């Protein structure tokens, strides 16, 4: 079918990548992890010398096997989130994260709860005008069909069970926003037992493991080489690192040492591993599902105790109403919101990378 399709008027910002190199002890990376609630994929790359045999330490192995890594899926009505028992048990305690599945952020109503008890409703114009709740227009929405974001803090005093605000929200969920959403959710609480009800469809989030000898740039193994005061090519080196992480995620043939000398058709790609580089044992652990910030933080802590050099990358949901906390998010052509933390304990440095799509308040 021939024809010209004009994309809706985009904001002038393009996708952006933010880079930050800092001291490991002074770094605020834990806060940054907490501020990114909706993660759908996590990938860990442990980098070691080629002679070692990779074996996951016991604490990590037992953590990965624990039932905390469970994903639940069911059809839920919004009124169920206002049940007294639910709020007292799972919102006030622990970390309950939920997001509607199969609903597109730019065209449908999307519901989500971040781990801090805040309910986000990203509604179309008709649904918003009928809901009777106060919201704000989303930064990235078409003028012909705007979208609105309603934020309800289920933990706040204003939402006490006998308050006007609670009754109003309950009225709206009972009479207007009555549609059921297919929601995936996870719950984690270090103190309590796992999420009970056996009625919901439950999936164990499986971890895939893989180890290979790959060509790795020296700047990843030794972050001191990236020091901005000495290295004039800081920007291009850091972009090389971003590229390498992407190629490793794709399991690209370009990273294998046996392909270094064998020419690959330049029509496909002209990528080469940036030099200086060396052979390293790269062990990959990845999981797809709904990964809470609590889980990401635990993984960071366990890896810090057992490895000197590792990379943790988290991909956010492309249809989430927010990417980072208080940051409006839309899809447009790519709803990416990804962050990577490269830790090098030897040089006591951490290199933080953050990718945002064009429809993101952060960019």
């Amino acid at each position, binding site marked *: 079918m021939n024809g010209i399709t004009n994309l809706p008027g985009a904001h002038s910002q393009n996708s952006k990548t933010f880079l930050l190199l800092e001291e490991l002890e002074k770094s605020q990376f834990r806060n940054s992890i907490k501020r990114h609630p909706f993660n759908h994929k996590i990938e860990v790359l442990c980098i070691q010398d080629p002679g070692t045999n990779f074996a996951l330490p016991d604490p990590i192995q037992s953590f990965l096997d624990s039932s905390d890594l469970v994903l639940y899926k069911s059809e839920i009505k919004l009124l169920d989130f206002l049940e007294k028992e639910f709020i007292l048990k799972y919102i006030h305690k622990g970390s309950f994260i939920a997001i509607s599945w199969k609903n597109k952020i730019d065209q449908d109503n999307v519901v989500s709860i971040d781990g801090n008890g805040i309910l986000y409703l990203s509604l179309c114009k*008709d649904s918003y*005008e*009928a809901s*009777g*709740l*106060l*919201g704000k227009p989303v930064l990235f929405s078409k003028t012909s069909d705007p979208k609105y974001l309603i934020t309800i803090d289920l933990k706040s005093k204003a939402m006490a069970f006998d308050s006007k605000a609670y009754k109003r929200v309950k009225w*709206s969920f009972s*009479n*207007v926003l009555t549609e059921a959403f297919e929601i995936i959710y996870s719950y984690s609480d270090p103190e309590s037992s796992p999420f009970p009800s056996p009625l919901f469809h439950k999936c164990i989030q499986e971890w895939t493991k893989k180890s290979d000898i790959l060509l790795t740039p020296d700047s990843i193994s030794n972050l001191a080489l990236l020091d901005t005061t000495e290295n004039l090519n800081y920007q291009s080196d850091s972009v090389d690192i971003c590229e390498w992480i992407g190629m490793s995620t794709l399991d690209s043939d370009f990273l294998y040492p046996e392909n270094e000398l064998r020419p690959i058709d330049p029509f496909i790609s002209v990528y080469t591993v940036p030099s200086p580089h060396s052979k390293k044992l790269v062990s990959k652990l990845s999981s797809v599902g709904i990964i809470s910030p609590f889980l990401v933080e635990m993984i960071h802590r366990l890896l810090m105790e057992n490895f000197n050099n590792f990379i943790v990358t988290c991909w956010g949901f492309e249809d989430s109403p927010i990417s980072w906390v208080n940051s409006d998010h839309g899809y447009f052509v790519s709803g990416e919101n990804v962050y990577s933390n490269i830790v090098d304990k030897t040089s006591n440095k951490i290199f933080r990378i953050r990718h945002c799509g064009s429809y993101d308040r952060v960019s």
Partner: protein
Amino acid sequence: MSLYAETQEFVKKKLPLDNGVKVNEYTKKFARDYVLDTLPKEVDKEKIYNDKVDRKVVIIDFSNKKEKRLPEKRLPEKPKKQSKRLSSRLRKKLGIYTIPKENHRYSVFEPLHTLWKEYIGRVIGTSTGSVASQRIVKAEFHGAFVSVIRSKCYSFVGKEGIVIQETKNTFTIISKDNKLLTIPKTNTLFEIRVSNLSFTFFGNQIMYRASERATKKFKPKSSLGL
């Protein structure tokens, strides 16, 4: 025989006309001397006086100047008839349309709603669909039970009650919890239920007084946004 009448004797004799008006001798002399003085020196004054002036009627009092017209007398203005309608300031001051607080009760207006149901039943009759919509949009809404379905202002959504007053831009309703609410028609979608029928209408499209709405022709339009 002559066609013309005979000239009168005094004309033949060239005697002055005797109209019975006696002229003073001094006046006669003065007039003659005045005219002779007025004539230029170069001419034969006696000859001109005798030929042109003496015994002739001369209009003295003639002026080319435009006469000043006196302003017409203005008749006293009749007192203006005072308008029979009260101004809105007076209306507010007198509190004509203010409902006293003791009557802010839903039960007081339930009989009105019952009456309205009978009335609207006769208006709609057995018609349905667009015919019924055309009739109801011209009907009286005082006494109707309306509810707000959608609104750009979130606080109006869900409000419902019996219409007590309808103005050009607002509905004043009494809700079941005895609260008097004034809801603007702008950017609001209302619903009226009549037996098993439900009618929704955009407030933006009925921004008229009730009396004007009854005679207005409404064109059918596809669904509109607020």
